[in-house]
């Protein structure tokens, strides 16, 4: 039932994108943190691409909080796109959106860079 989490990192002109797919829960912690570290090895902001993510639960929220804490420690800007309406609402309720800019889509995210 559970779709395996995967994260890959791509470079852009002004930073990196962490492209995610599958389920974001506690099992995703290691992979997501490794991907973030790889992205953060480059200068510029880190964008998180949620288009391939089909499920985020509270343990996944905790994993994202962990990544945001890493970014905050090095004063790095984090953005996100590809979230469904529902998860945008969840990110608002949990105030994650106060610490990462949520873009409507990839175009908007890239344009903002």
């Amino acid at each position: 039932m559970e779709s395996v989490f995967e994260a890959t990192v791509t470079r852009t002109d002004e930073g990196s994108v962490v492209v995610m797919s599958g389920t974001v829960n506690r099992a995703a912690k290691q992979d997501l943190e490794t991907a973030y570290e790889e992205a953060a090895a480059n200068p510029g902001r880190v964008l998180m691409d949620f288009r391939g993510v089909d499920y985020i639960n509270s343990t996944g929220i905790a994993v994202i909080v962990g990544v945001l804490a890493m970014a905050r420690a090095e004063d790095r800007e984090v953005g996100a796109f590809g979230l469904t309406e529902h998860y945008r609402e969840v990110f608002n309720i949990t105030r994650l959106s106060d610490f990462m800019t949520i873009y409507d889509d990839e175009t908007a995210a890239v344009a903002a860079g």
Partner: protein
Amino acid sequence: MVQLMRRRRAEEETPVGDETQIPESNTRLIEAIPIPVGDPLETLLVTSGGPVVLRDLELESETVDTLREAGVELIVPLIGQGELLGALYLGPRLSDQPYSTDDRRLLGSLASQVAPAMKVAQLVREQQAEAKERERIHQELQVAALIQQTLLPKELPAIAGWQVDAFYRPARAVGGDFYDFIALEDGRLGVVIGDVTDKGVPAALVMATCRSMLRAAAQRHSSPSAVLADVNDGLVPEIPPAMFVTCLYAIIDTDAGEVVFANAGHNLPYVRHDGGVLELRATGMPLGLMPGMGYDETKYEMAAGEVMVLTSDGITEAHNAEGEMYGFARLMDRVARRPINDDVLNAVVAELEAFTGEGAEQEDDITLVVVKRTSSAQMSAETFEDRRQTLAKFAIPSEEGNERIAIAKVTAAVDELDLEPARLERLKTAVGETVMNAIEHGNQNRSELDVDVQVCANDESVSVLVSDRGGDRLIPEATVPDLDAKLAGNQTPRGWGLFLIEKMVDEVRSTSDGTTHTIELVMNREGAS
């Protein structure tokens, strides 16, 4: 207790020193002559330091006389840790010679070796008896708990415009608390809370009898006082002496908001209203003491937002570590202090637990029934069971990740309701988080335990009930997670589950029957396309 036996000299002379040749017919065992505790002989034997010759003894003791009559000549005390464990009584020697110093020394030495073995045997016997008694009590308590829990309501009545919650937690010794909800033919709702004096199986059986009588009488009479009078007369000839039942019976007209109740010596109900808290009074003798009793009746019209709190004395008579009693005044004060829209039930239980202290053994059963009038709109008085339709019922094993199965099944079950997509997504998230909690916290990830899920709907709302075996675990109050502290690394990044659940649905209810813990997620259907 001292048990004694001896071999008596045979009538016919038998060769000395060859015991095996004594014909059985020439010997006899005399019955054991106990030495009562406190007899002067006991003190003498404990302090004698060895065998005592009875002939030389000058002691005012009936036991000594009895022993002499029985032909006892020598007493060899068996002493263990300064306590007289037993004694050997010996008659005259076969040779008719007095017991020599060597004889006495030998017997004394024998006694000192026998005594420790006797002590061990005595302790083993006592422990076996204790273990047997503990097992018997344990089994009896299990039977009592089973009777009690089988008869308590499995579901809470759900009535439009009302919210009814109940909490029941048995003490280890299982008291006689009970509560019940009775759907009356005219659409009104009967609410019972009671307490049988005594504990264990006798209390559970009286509770079962009383409950049946109440259910029958509730359908025969339309007034609570008549119901209690009827049950009292029925119970008097049935109830064992020195037992009785305190009981409060209320009838709620769910359309008009009127509550009428009568009280047979039970805790008085409180009503939390805008201006504070009110104690509603009605007097009457407990059930089962005397026939022909009359019961006062009190009426109260509940306004929207008001809460009626019914309790058992397990709450008011609970003590803290300093021996201080929780008491009515404290309960009333705590109810009064709760915000009007607060979860009174969980708040009272949490405050009681804080008062008695963590890990304190519960003295008596604790029962709490909370009835809230949520809306004054004229609504149907049909019970929720009548109106609610079960859309799905399933069980999933407690394994990590299985909340996705629950989400998929609930989604399929509510498909026909055409919930607005955003509401459906919120419900899915709440179901996922609740099932995760049930798997992880309620069932402790034990895959042999199932999480039971039931999906029901009526015209106004859809309910998803998630049950685990977490006992009477209460849902902790959801607090807003401190994201700044989490990001600064001062708090764990976790702790989002309960917060999300509460944000996702319109209402979260928590109930327990002591074994099964159920969370009900209520999502209003308004906005359905």
